[in-house]
């Protein structure tokens, strides 16, 4: 079924990211997503960046569909189906939220008094939701050194004692997640990672999002570290829109 709701407000977060706020009376867990349809254009997966009574979609502009979505005005409708996917597991105790690029969008519902954050981006103005953490609970890294540590997300993680967290939640592009996984492999830590791949159906039938026989849209997008470590395709190959296998550079 396609839900259509009118948005309450459209907030600019960074030069390339907007957040759409709305009411939708359905239970959603952190880590789940919806397939968002822009009639006349396309349909794209979007994580919920708020999962309480008020819901939110945080849109990174990169193509026609996401651009159109980021221009929706208060009172106008958005169209989506879901929620889909396996949520992050809940834990009691200290958590670390690690978001690269627009990855912090799907981690945002996990922000509470026990959470610390690591936010990485190309440059200062692209750091997403860093202001939602208390100043002493956030580490920032930028590729160009315009804010925080000059370097990538792994350079930021090096500064942190990861073992002391009950759970580390990670979200970002596959290449970034791969670097995190390589960095922590062999260490005794609890980590869940939300992966990103192209999705066409969102419901586990089209095979466009699969890794090692798992469907990101139904078995994921969140996976435990031990599962990710078994994946032969992860960070190496994926299927293009046509189904042709391509290698990551």
């Amino acid at each position, binding site marked *: *079924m*396609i839900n*259509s709701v009118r948005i309450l407000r459209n907030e600019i977060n960074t030069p390339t990211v907007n957040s759409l706020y709305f009411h939708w009376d359905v239970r959603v867990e952190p880590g789940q997503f919806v*397939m968002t*349809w822009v*009639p*006349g254009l*396309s*349909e*794209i997966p979007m994580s919920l960046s708020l999962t309480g009574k008020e819901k939110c979609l945080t849109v990174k502009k990169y193509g026609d569909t996401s651009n159109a979505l980021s221009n929706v005005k208060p009172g106008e*409708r958005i*169209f989506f*189906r879901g929620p889909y996917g396996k949520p992050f597991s809940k834990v009691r105790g200290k958590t670390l939220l690690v978001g690269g690029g627009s990855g912090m969008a799907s981690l945002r519902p996990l922000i509470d008094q026990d959470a610390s954050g690591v936010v990485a981006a190309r440059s200062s103005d692209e750091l997403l939701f860093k202001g939602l953490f208390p100043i002493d609970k956030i580490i920032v890294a930028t590729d160009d050194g315009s804010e925080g540590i000059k370097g990538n997300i792994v350079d930021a993680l090096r500064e942190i004692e990861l073992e002391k967290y009950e759970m580390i939640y990670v979200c970002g592009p596959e290449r970034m997640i791969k670097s995190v996984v390589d960095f922590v492999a062999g260490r005794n830590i609890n980590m869940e990672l939300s992966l990103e791949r192209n999705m*066409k*159906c*969102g*419901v*586990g*039938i*089209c*095979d*466009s999002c*699969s*890794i*090692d*026989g*798992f*469907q990101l849209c*139904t078995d994921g997008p969140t996976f435990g570290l031990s599962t990710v470590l078994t994946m*032969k*395709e992860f960070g190496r190959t994926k*299927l*293009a*829109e*046509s*189904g*042709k*296998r391509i290698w990551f550079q």
Partner: protein
Amino acid sequence: MSISDISTSIGNINLSNPFILASGILDENGYTMKRILSEGASAAVTKSIGMEERNGYKPPIVAIDDPIFINAVGLPNPGILNVGEEIKTARESGKPVIGSIFGKDENEFIELAGKMEEYGVSAVELNLSCPHVKGFGSEIGGDPNLVRKIVKGVKGAISKPVWSKLSPNVTNLLDIANAASDSDALVLINTVRGMKIDIYSKKPVLSNKVGGLSGSSIKPVGIRSVYEVKSNMDIPVIGVGGIESGFDAVEYIMAGATAVQIGTAVWKYGRAVFSKVTNELLEFMGSEGYGKIEEFRGIALK
């Protein structure tokens, strides 16, 4: 009580159970097919493959309103030259992989079938029935002369079994089934042409507007198709369309199906649907006192 034997065979292809993964559902990526085969499907049919790489339609490619499920994926595929590796990976499961192909004429079908045979498939399934791509599928599958030519051509060109998958979107199914009677088996049915309009955006949901209806809504059409063909022809039939339970499969088998394929039910039950339907079939056979599938195959035809 001894456990029933649910194995079956289609010609020389032996299946540990009658449940085959249908073409177009989780069968582009070799690792995916391998996982489904390891989780209970007895064989897998690949996504339909053509001569050239194709991206398919842009999303939305599905319009879903439970139990309605309509797709217009648009035959995305990597092109025949790029599927060898995927089939090889899938075959590591040790179970039969069937290569589905689509083309615009007899020559394309022959070339595609030859390549599939090279890749080591156990059979080739001719998709004569995709309902939503112009120039392929139904436009071919609705023309008995073309169907006869394609089936004859492919049969003459390869030594592996040839299955023909037919469309229910025709005036007279028996005409087409007869035209395809050189096949080693018929696969019935592909999706039924359908459409969904969203009343708030006032637009068709699918980017292609028209798509193919599948899932439980089409099971009666599938049952009727299998029954009609088996009442008139002596040819193995593989039943497909709306099978979600072992009991649905029994219905197809009683209409005369040798095996069945499952697609859309993966949306409802995930890959685990294959162990679910297997358990249900065993439960039915146990409670009704059947030791083998042959004991009730086609029983409703009598």
